[in-house]
């Protein structure tokens, strides 16, 4: 059974190589990424219970903080594959952005992971309690 799997894998890799494109799956953090957060939100952080202080004592300094300290971002970047096309190569990097949101009392309200491609993250968080709805001007104004 194993030999069949190896043959199939070999055939697939050969076909891809001959087509001029090879994707080698990997899973490691980039050189500049933090490594204490990952693809899943940490189980030790419990919405409705864990405080800002406890989050900081568990995860350390966040990569970014909203100006009213109600949202923390922890950004982990991983190389998910090597992409080889002809004589050129590149990495496929994904960012796992852990977004922890706090209520007005500084207790975790929610947490989520945003799985992002390798883009230049713009660290300009707005305070999430001060967002005001945009009102469009009436016609003729």
């Amino acid at each position: 059974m194993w030999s069949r799997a190896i043959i199939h894998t070999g055939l697939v890799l050969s076909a891809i190589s001959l087509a001029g494109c090879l994707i080698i799956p990997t899973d490691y953090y980039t050189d500049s990424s933090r490594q204490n957060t990952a693809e899943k939100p940490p189980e030790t952080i419990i919405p409705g219970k864990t405080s800002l202080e406890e989050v900081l004592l568990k995860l350390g300094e966040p990569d970014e903080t909203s100006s009213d300290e109600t949202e923390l971002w922890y950004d982990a970047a991983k190389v998910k594959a090597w992409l080889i096309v002809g004589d050129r190569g590149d990495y496929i990097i994904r960012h796992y952005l852990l977004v922890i949101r706090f209520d007005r009392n500084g207790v975790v309200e929610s947490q989520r992971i945003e799985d992002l491609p390798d883009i230049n993250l713009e660290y300009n968080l707005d305070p999430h309690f001060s967002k005001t709805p945009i009102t469009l001007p009436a016609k003729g104004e």
Partner: protein
Amino acid sequence: MEMEGRAPEETMKTSQFKIAAYTLCTLFVFGGCVTLPPVPADKNLLISVATGTSRETILLKLGEPSASFEQGRILTYRIGADDDQGYFLLDRQVRWTNTKYSLVLVFDGKGFLTKHNLIPVR
């Protein structure tokens, strides 16, 4: 037959412009190659970090924190570590290159350290 060429003043201006441009390019090129002095490491850097230490003592020892929360009640520092020479402080950067730990310090209302944790980030 009309003489082709530029007036001497114009030629001078052009050459001055060229010299300025070359100088600027050279400065930019060498500016990117400046080697920063190594950050001094200290095995006793974190020795003053103990429950009950005043905020003032911490700031005098470690300097400006990389981040602060809740009006300065919680301070964080980015720490690098060298196996032989000890810990060293790192400035806040967008990324975590060379940073090994995040030091989190929590003070009480009177400014004394109540909780602290050295969290491995890499």
